[in-house]
């Protein structure tokens, strides 16, 4: 027994006593209204004390271990997952396996599971889109769900009034998302960090409130029903076949998103985003237009939200403003932060975990959201960089690559 251990035990003891004191009124005192007496349940106090002591001890132990690991990690550089991702001999077979799994998934599992997976993949797409804004360009956007709503209502309304099909509206939804991204991005160009978050949060709510109250346009809280699923060459598909078809569409869209974001990160535009996140003033001094670069990020991020919205409307067949509350924005932001800001694989894992976990926790009933919250808090304490922390892939220069231009 060395000093630090004793110290930790002392701290846990204090925590236990504090908890016993705090919970005293609810755990110990019980007023019996019939006999008009007070039951003193001292046993409960003992349980609280012992429980709090052990939980606190475990908590402290984990924190200690994390600190130790961190020191070790700094020496070693990358974690195992990150290494697997970067070494081609591992990453290629892993990708192929994942693809095969994605292809056979709807044939292995029930339609219910496929539906859940479609929602999860929509969130993957949203997470990847928001990742452009938050992870790459460093702009904290809390109103992201507004663009999701724009896409969903674009499909619902264009289909209702003009009979436009899924494939026509998909790019239109993306385009409308981008337009709204620029419209809402323009006024907030000067804001940063918390201020930006608050104003974008406001914008998100404005869009929802408009949808809720402008009955002639959006049918208010009643929403729009009977939104058709995508057609396949005019074939008459059964509901389950349509669901599977939609599943493949969203899988393809996710792959497309990953491809585009990969290309963007390695480009002149992507570099400008990183530079802007690092230092705005130096960035401008290098001739980069701050406004244009930020608007590009807003617009591109919103494009994916718009397309995600179209798929969402097609999936649920019914939308109303209640699907687009601030809570959705928060969840999407959580997938990005918990997954690993800036990291594509991280965001995908984060979205899958955060959407699938609550689904499969339904058995826990009312404890579902508490468990969900606890998982998030634990994540942020033990892995603040997200599940898969982003290691930016830097441009690696190889000597002999250049043919020495003299500019």
């Amino acid at each position, binding site marked *: 027994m060395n000093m630090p251990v004793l110290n930790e035990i002392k701290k846990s003891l204090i925590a236990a006593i504090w908890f016993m004191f705090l919970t005293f009124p609810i755990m110990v005192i019980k007023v019996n209204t019939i006999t008009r007496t007070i039951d003193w349940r001292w046993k409960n106090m003992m349980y609280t004390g012992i429980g709090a002591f052990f939980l606190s001890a475990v908590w402290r132990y984990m924190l200690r271990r994390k600190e130790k690991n961190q020191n070790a990690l700094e020496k070693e550089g990358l974690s195992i997952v990150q290494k697997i991702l970067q070494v081609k001999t591992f990453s290629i077979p892993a990708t192929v396996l994942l693809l095969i799994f994605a292809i056979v998934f709807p044939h292995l599992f029930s339609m219910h599971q496929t539906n859940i997976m479609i929602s999860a993949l929509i969130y993957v797409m949203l997470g990847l889109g928001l990742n452009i804004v938050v992870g790459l360009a460093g702009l904290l956007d809390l109103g992201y769900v507004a663009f999701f709503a724009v896409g969903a209502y674009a499909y619902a309304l264009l289909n209702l009034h003009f009979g436009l099909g899924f494939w026509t509206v998909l790019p239109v939804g993306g385009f409308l998302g981008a337009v709204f991204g620029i419209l809402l991005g323009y006024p907030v160009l000067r804001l940063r960090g918390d201020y930006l978050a608050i104003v974008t949060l406001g914008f998100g709510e404005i869009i929802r409130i408009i949808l809720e109250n402008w009955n002639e346009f959006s049918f208010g809280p009643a929403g729009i029903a009977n939104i058709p699923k995508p057609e396949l060459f005019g074939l008459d598909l059964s509901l389950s076949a349509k669901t599977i078809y939609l599943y493949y569409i969203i899988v393809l869209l996710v792959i497309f998103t990953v491809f*585009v974001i990969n*290309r*963007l990160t*390695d*480009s*002149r*535009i*992507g*570099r*400008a985003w*990183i*530079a802007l*996140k*690092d*230092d705005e*003033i*130096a*960035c*401008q*001094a*290098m*001739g*980069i*237009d*701050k406004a244009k670069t930020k608007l*590009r990020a807003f617009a*591109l991020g919103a494009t994916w939200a718009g397309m995600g919205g179209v798929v969402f409307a097609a999936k649920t067949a019914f939308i109303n403003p209640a699907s687009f509350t601030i809570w959705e924005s928060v969840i999407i932001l959580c997938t990005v932060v918990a997954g690993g800001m800036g990291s594509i694989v991280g965001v995908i894992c984060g979205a899958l975990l955060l959407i699938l976990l609550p689904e499969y926790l339904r058995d826990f009933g009312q404890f579902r959201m508490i468990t969900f919250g606890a998982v998030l808090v634990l994540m942020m304490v033990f892995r603040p960089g997200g599940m898969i922390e982003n290691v*930016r892939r*830097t*441009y*690696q*220069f190889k000597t002999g*690559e*250049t*043919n*020495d*231009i*003299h*500019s």
Partner: protein
Amino acid sequence: MTSILDVKNLTLDFGGLRAIDHLNLTVNKGEIAALIGPNGAGKTSFFNCITGIYKPTAGEIFLTCRNGEKERINGLKPNLVTRKGMARTFQNIRLFSSMTVLENVMIGCHSITHAGILGAVFKDAATRKEEKYIVDKSYSILKTLELERFVNELAVNLPYGAQRLLEIARAMATDPQLLLLDEPAAGMNPTETRRLDDMILKIRDEKGIAILLIEHDMKLVMRISETIHVVDYGKKIGEGTPEEIRNHPVVIKAYLGEDIHA
């Protein structure tokens, strides 16, 4: 001699504080000029004004742009000033910390390249060619400044002196006609400063870039600059060749205690 930068009666107020007071300054093409003065004289504020970071209270700034025409650049945004051909470094180093040395210089190439979102996604021949051009150009600038051994290193991991040089490399990547250096030798040891001398001369001689530098190291200033401008409390108190400044009575008074005869 044709001038490249013409500043007339520039004035800058911070509330009640007049940081720059009716300052006139001209830099000629291909010239190495120095701006010196005691701490808080308003030198950095002057740079911030002419590069568009601060908005001057009064006065005119003219820059001879790439096309040879003289343009008024008051109130222009910093990125546009850079595009017109005036680039700068920062006194408190402002490198992009999550990027490598090469990537920092590649950012400098931003204003002279064009690839947009579509180019990034489709990676067509023109974009690939441009990317190659950016890499080649950046590497050759690193070579000029003898930084090529750090090429893939993160910028923050560089020694202090090398970070100062990298700031210059990054600014050079914007293809400037006039380079503004804010205390490039600060924190360097005498050997490094000596090398910096040679590099500044090399940049001017090989690329024909005019240079205006703020510096407290009088040895360096006296050795390389052709014209020296002295400011104190935002006012110009002297201008001339190193020889003239050395013997300028007002300047000597302002610098009382500081050894400019070094």
